[in-house]
């Protein structure tokens, strides 16, 4: 694959994990009666750290990193600009949330707002990666893929921050997400096969790539070990994280651009 894409693989994956954690931090706050008493400080630290690492990584995919700030220039039409903006806001809100949680002044609405903006940011990412050159993903698929990642990694990794009894809550989200993710990611390449030449080539790439199948295997493992009422084994989030990473590499490496087929039958 094109190693130049590595920074974006990290950026998208880490920020989506961050949003996932934010959602569940907020959710727990909301799900409990007495708001601020719940301990979500570590989550918010982790969330900020993830955003930080992700953003730093993102710089490395630019030919001229010093010009990064100019990326806000085209909010009007460019989803990439909107993505940068919403993530900036998300980062800011996350910082505020951490402060409030730290100073015990947190209120549920603030955290919910942060989580909501986070989801919005992932939405913009989904739109930004629906590249017009990539017939296979010039649609809502990137958004679907990314959201599935959010709701897979969010609850999975959140288990590290909560006590056993809260696992039930996480599982109730994680299980259906894993199921949905597995079905969607299994079916989509076959649908591509029935598309035009470049979509078909994309489908072929996926169905013949170990990256894709290992990703599915990770999801399957998840389904197998995540049971309602049961607690989530400590190794599982790692497996799921690796699975999503492989899936993300596949997403960046295996999608064929229509420009690659000029002169051929479409």
């Amino acid at each position: 694959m094109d190693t130049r894409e590595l920074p974006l693989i990290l950026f998208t994956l880490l920020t989506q994990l961050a949003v996932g954690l934010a959602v569940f931090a907020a959710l727990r706050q909301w799900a409990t009666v007495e708001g601020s008493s719940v301990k979500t400080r570590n989550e918010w630290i982790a969330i900020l750290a993830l955003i930080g690492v992700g953003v730093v990584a993102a710089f490395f995919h630019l030919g001229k990193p010093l010009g990064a700030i100019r990326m806000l220039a085209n909010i009007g039409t460019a989803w990439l600009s909107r993505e940068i903006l919403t993530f900036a806001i998300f980062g800011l809100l996350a910082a505020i949330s951490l402060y409030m949680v730290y100073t015990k002044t947190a209120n549920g609405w603030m955290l919910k707002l942060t989580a909501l903006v986070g989801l919005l940011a992932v939405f913009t990412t989904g739109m930004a990666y629906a590249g017009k050159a990539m017939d296979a993903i010039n649609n809502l698929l990137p958004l679907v893929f990314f959201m599935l990642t959010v709701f897979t990694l969010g609850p999975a990794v959140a288990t590290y921050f909560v006590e056993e009894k809260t696992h039930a809550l996480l599982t109730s989200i994680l299980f259906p997400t894993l199921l949905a993710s597995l079905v969607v990611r299994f079916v989509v390449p076959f649908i591509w096969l029935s598309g035009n030449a470049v979509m078909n080539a994309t489908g072929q790439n996926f169905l013949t790539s170990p990256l894709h199948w290992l990703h599915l295997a990770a999801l399957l493992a998840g389904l197998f070990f995540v049971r309602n009422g049961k607690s989530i084994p400590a190794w599982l989030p790692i497996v799921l994280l690796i699975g999503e990473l492989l899936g993300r590499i596949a997403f960046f490496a295996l999608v064929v651009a229509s420009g690659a087929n000029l002169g051929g039958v479409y």
Partner: protein
Amino acid sequence: MTRYAFSVNAELCIGCSSCGMACKNQYNLDPGMVWRKLYPLSEEIYPHKDRAFYSLACNHCSQPACLEGCPVGAYTQREDGIVVHNEDVCIGCRNCLRNCPFGAPRYNEEEGHVEKCSMCWQRIDEGLLPACVQACPTNALTLVDLDTDDVSGTVQYPPGFPYRPDVEPSTRFVLPVAPKVVRRDV
């Protein structure tokens, strides 16, 4: 009004590559960098391998996906339809590579920016033809004004070229013709 576009007549094109090299020569492109090149048509489209071509660079779309998706606004479109890319503004995020259905923008690794065909707008403003058009020995590659010139008999989406009304590529095409062939049996 003027709406400039390239017209690619594959019946007249003799695959000489003069257009592509004229472009490199005009802008002294770095070795390895190609703004315009010939794309041979696959045998399903033309019966003989490497014998019919589309000479393609940027298609200067009416709804340029590169421009729409560029976060820094490095792309602008002129009144006359020419899509201009500004290397000085470009920060090399390569989002346009992800968006152009025709693979026109090329990434220059060393410079850390994207490059593409400018339709030689400076030459056009001087009343000259684009370097590639002037180079074509058979008028297979021409500059047309979609607003005033008669482009009937040309197609916008020939086989071997993506059907993308969403971006409205301005390039027009004439399809190649194969001769009657008398072969020895060996």
